[in-house]
């Protein structure tokens, strides 16, 4: 990617003046160019604007000359730290997904497009299939229920209530059920909708006096998939309508699938009748995958995409991202992108000290001994001096900083730290850690020192 962009820039260089080039183009980067979707990073909003308004044509031409397919170009500015929020918009999960760079659409917009799309009345995303859903110990029960639902829709597991934390694949699994059922029986009437879009459609239908049409549309369905039902909070009228639709479909033995991030009785303001209905056929969860599952997921993804990534690199990512699958996949994409940018393989990148954005990814590549050596060197001491018995304040501080880094960065226990820094027992380590913990809040110098040492440790 890096070399590619370099060629593009060479092309552009011949078309604009040298000052223009150095002012606008020199700091730009090509982030991706997958399937015609091109993303280019710019230095700041001012440069972004010039790219959009003045140089878009030039960039497109230069990309084409370098045989890069271009449908859409998005110019972005990297920013991560600034946060703005209007309180009134806090109600739903929408704005969490909102991305100021304009790369990601609001989920409600996506849902709306899918919901109102005549060519795809089911609202299902065909990307989600049972084949590309990786089964592991974290989700095998949910998957076997999903298979039972596919074999016998509307029978034993009705409603199928699936819950689990964000980014663990709930949406994937339920959409895969819909896609599979549609594949087997293309005439089946399937609808996938996130609950918040259910509301807005309902409210619209009331405003347009088409309430009857709305409920008819739902009552004709053979399979209804409602995503993220936890956002049902505090909307009584729609809840009432949903309850009726639910009952009608249920009595006609039509399959209903519901996802949530928590159990029905934990969703506040859900009517008790509805809560008990939702869990009447049992509730099934998807948990965070363990290390092996995470490896399997990434491996499957790499095979699916035909990406070139070593298994060791996959292991490294799987080991360091423990939050959820969405983060796992984004970290995977990031490693691939950065490796691509630097023209190395993912494993080379990791071995060169690439630090993960999530998780404490750095810690694995350094040993306790290295930490102790670096700290001693930083304070101009020998390891022997630092790990000796001296109570001189600078030596003592160095020793405590070493303990602190071992504890925070390598997550070592106090008993394990003690022999590394030559102290008697874990209580001494605990005292040392406590002291640094307090001092670091007040003493900027110490904090900077520790940051510098960390940089030295991970720097080479």
């Amino acid at each position, binding site marked *: 990617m890096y070399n590619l962009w370099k060629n593009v820039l060479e092309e552009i260089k011949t078309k604009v003046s*040298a*000052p*223009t080039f*150095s*002012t606008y183009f020199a700091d730009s980067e090509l982030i991706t160019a997958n399937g015609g979707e091109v993303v280019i990073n710019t230095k*700041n*909003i*001012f*440069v*972004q*604007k*010039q790219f*959009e*308004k*003045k140089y878009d044509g030039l960039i497109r031409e230069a990309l084409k000359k370098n045989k890069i397919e271009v449908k859409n170009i998005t110019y972005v*500015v*990297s*920013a*991560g*730290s*600034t*946060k*703005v*929020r*209007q*309180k*009134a918009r806090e109600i739903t999960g929408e704005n969490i997904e909102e991305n*100021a760079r304009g790369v990601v659409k609001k989920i409600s917009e996506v849902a709306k497009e899918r919901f109102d799309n005549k060519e795809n009345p089911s609202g299902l995303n065909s990307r989600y299939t049972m084949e590309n859903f990786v089964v592991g110990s974290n989700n095998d029960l949910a998957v076997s229920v999903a298979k039972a639902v596919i074999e016998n829709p509307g029978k034993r597991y009705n409603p199928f209530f699936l819950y689990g934390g964000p980014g663990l694949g709930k949406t994937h699994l339920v959409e895969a059920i819909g896609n599979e059922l549609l594949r087997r029986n293309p005439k089946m009437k399937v609808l996938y909708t996130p609950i918040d879009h259910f509301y807005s459609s309902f409210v619209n239908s009331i405003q347009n006096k088409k309430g009857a049409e709305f409920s008819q549309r739902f009552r004709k369905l053979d399979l209804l998939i409602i995503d993220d039902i936890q956002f049902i909070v505090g909307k009584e009228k729609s809840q009432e309508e949903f309850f009726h639709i639910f009952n009608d479909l249920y009595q006609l033995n039509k399959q209903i699938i519901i996802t949530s991030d928590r159990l029905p009785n934990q969703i506040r303001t859900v009517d008790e009748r509805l809560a008990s209905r939702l869990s009447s056929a049992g509730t099934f969860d998807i948990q965070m995958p363990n290390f092996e599952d995470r490896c399997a997921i990434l491996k499957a993804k790499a095979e699916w995409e035909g990406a070139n990534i070593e298994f060791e690199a996959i292991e490294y990512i799987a080991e360091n991202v423990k939050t959820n699958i969405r983060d796992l996949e984004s970290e995977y994409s990031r490693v691939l992108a950065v490796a691509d940018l630097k023209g190395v393989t993912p494993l080379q990148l990791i071995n060169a000290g690439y630090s993960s954005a999530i998780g404490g990814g750095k810690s694995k590549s350094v040993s306790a001994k290295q930490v102790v050596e670096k700290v001693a060197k930083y304070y101009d001491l020998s390891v022997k001096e630092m790990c000796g018995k001296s109570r001189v304040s600078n030596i003592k501080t160095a020793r405590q900083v070493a303990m602190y880094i071992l504890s925070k960065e390598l997550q070592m226990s106090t008993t394990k730290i003690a022999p590394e820094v030559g102290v008697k027992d874990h209580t001494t380590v605990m005292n040392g850690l406590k002291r640094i913990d307090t001092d670091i*809040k*007040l*003493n*900027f110098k110490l904090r*900077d020192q520790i940051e510098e040492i960390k940089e030295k440790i991970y720097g080479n």
Partner: protein
Amino acid sequence: MKIVVEQEKLAKALNNVSRIVAGGKTTLPILNNVLIRVDAGKATLTTTNLDMAVVDYLPVIESVDGVITAPARLMAEFVSNLPKNAKVEIEDKDKKITLKSGNYKATVNGVEADDFPEMPEVDEKKSVAFVMGVDEFRAGLSEVLVATSNDTSRPALTGVFYNTFNDSLFVAATDGYRLADRKIVEKVKSEVKAIVPTMPLNEAMRAIQEDTEEVEILFNELMVQIRVGEVEITSKLIDGSYPDYRQLIPKNSEENIEVKKEELVRTVKLAALFSKTVGGTIKVETDAKNGKLRVLAVANEMGENASEIETKVEKDEKITLNAKYLLDALNCIEEESVIIGLSPNLAPMVVKNAKSSDYTHIIMPLNV
């Protein structure tokens, strides 16, 4: 393009926009120019250095629509030297701009507006806005700007941190040695955490006129826009994480002493004279037995100095710090009395306004 404007208004507007112009330092010559645009009878002047932009609306007596750019500094200096109360006429023809005012006339080479950068717009729907009185805006800034850092290796500390906390808007700045925090607006409805570079803030302060009443600040994730009267200043934000500075402010100091600001400033200045060789290190002590606050010079190569202020003191505390930082802190407070907070164990010194809790300035001790 043609405009006829009162000399004073034009001079003021050109002055407002031309300060940010790089003046020969830029590689891109067009950035030395001001964009003069007349659109449906409305005239604006725009300049940018590609980190920020200033737009000023110009009240015109007569106008013909059009757009051109001209060297900003030259225009500003020429117009400011014309007689007051006169009318100035600016007209462009074939990229030559004629300035006329009575018997004074000049022709300046213009550059086509096509080469001038496009300005990013602020999408109000995706932004949060805060409106405040000019006094709050100005006081907030003048009390924290001094604590910003010049060290470009930590960019976040070179800016002013606008942040909301408990439904109030605060500005804060720190360079790692001292920290200033000021509440400027209460009961705000939006949330923000953004680091604003000091240059647009200084420009916004300069743009304040006698009749300006309010300042509006809009933030989105990439930029800030400050609207002061007819002037709009747009800037990028600093990308970086700001330290969790509230952790650094001691909740309660062990000893709080109220002193006359003037008196303390004098004693600190006197002590600083004797500590020049050690970089202005002075010691501040409280003496409970004698009811005194004492300020001493630490180095005695030049001699010694100790000054005392009589006041109510309950505990013995002491701190060693840099005299300059203490003077800076005291100069930020526009009140007769200040409260000095001290605690043991190398805790920072807290300097507050005796009449208001909105402002907190803390100074890290020197460990000697």
